[in-house]
């Protein structure tokens, strides 16, 4: 028991817990394609035509099986952003991330869903909704989500970096 400078006692423990997660065939297919082609893929619902990233076997909105794989772009658009000042541990390194860091909701070209991820930029204050970003993958791909390192800020959209309209 710990005394904790109070009238009352505490029992302090740290639990180290591990699980094995079966990713399933669709997610495995995404990681295999990512590793083989250095490309992100989504799945498309044949009913509502929504393209999902991360891919999954069922469109929940239509309760419809999805079998179509769609190749996604290497760039995307920031649709939501924040500059964070609180400390978090980087799950890749286990070390605290330097603050401030930028989080973005990123709509990758060709996808209808968005992805929340880190945006790398020399100037956090100049990142705006609508700006373009590029996916940065790690050099040696391992076939898991850690292969997506972050998104590099490119700046406001220009005609050449405009997302492809579906």
């Amino acid at each position, binding site marked *: 028991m*710990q005394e904790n400078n109070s*009238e009352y*006692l*505490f029992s302090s423990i740290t639990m180290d*817990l591990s699980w094995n*997660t*079966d990713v399933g065939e669709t997610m495995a297919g995404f990681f295999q394609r990512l590793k083989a082609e250095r490309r992100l893929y989504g799945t498309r619902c044949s009913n509502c035509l929504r393209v999902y990233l991360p891919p999954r076997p069922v469109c929940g909105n239509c309760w419809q099986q999805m079998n179509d794989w769609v190749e996604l772009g290497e760039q995307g658009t920031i649709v939501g952003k924040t500059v964070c000042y609180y400390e978090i541990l980087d799950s890749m390194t286990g070390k605290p991330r330097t603050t401030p860091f930028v989080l973005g909701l990123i709509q990758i070209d060709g996808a209808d869903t968005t992805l929340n991820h880190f945006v790398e930029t020399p100037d956090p204050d100049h990142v705006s909704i609508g700006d373009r970003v590029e996916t940065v993958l790690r050099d040696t791909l391992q076939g*898991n989500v850690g292969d997506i390192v972050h998104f590099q800020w490119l700046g406001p959209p220009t005609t050449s970096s405009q997302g492809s309209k579906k």
Partner: protein
Amino acid sequence: MKKYQQLRASVHLPFSFAVGATASRFYRALRDEKTIYGTRCDNCQRVSVPARSFCSHCCKTIDHHQTGQWIALPEYGTLIGWCETPNKDGFFTALIQLEGADNLLLHRVGQCDAVLLHKGLHLRAAWKASAAGTITDIVCFKPERRA
């Protein structure tokens, strides 16, 4: 056979559980007085060990500050049941009936030959030299010849 992808994920989660006022007094007494305390419900008179704040039979609060509700129990009792496979430090997980208590205490029995263990065996607490205010301040319950 087809190989499926599986991910190994580990987490480290720190917790600090409050044991509450009644249990705080119980663990401190274990550490400072080397005494096992129980509580008596003033409605059904049941004595519970470890000491607790609530009688679930009567759905009634037990106030450990009231006389007659905070009970020092003897450190001896009898063996009721045990797991025949010893745990890794050689003790046997056991249910012990402390004299004067109405419920069974989950602890361990040991420092003896396993063949000696039988239901009704008289046991006495063996205390750790340096107490920390946890239930393992009692190393185990040890068979003893009845006085």
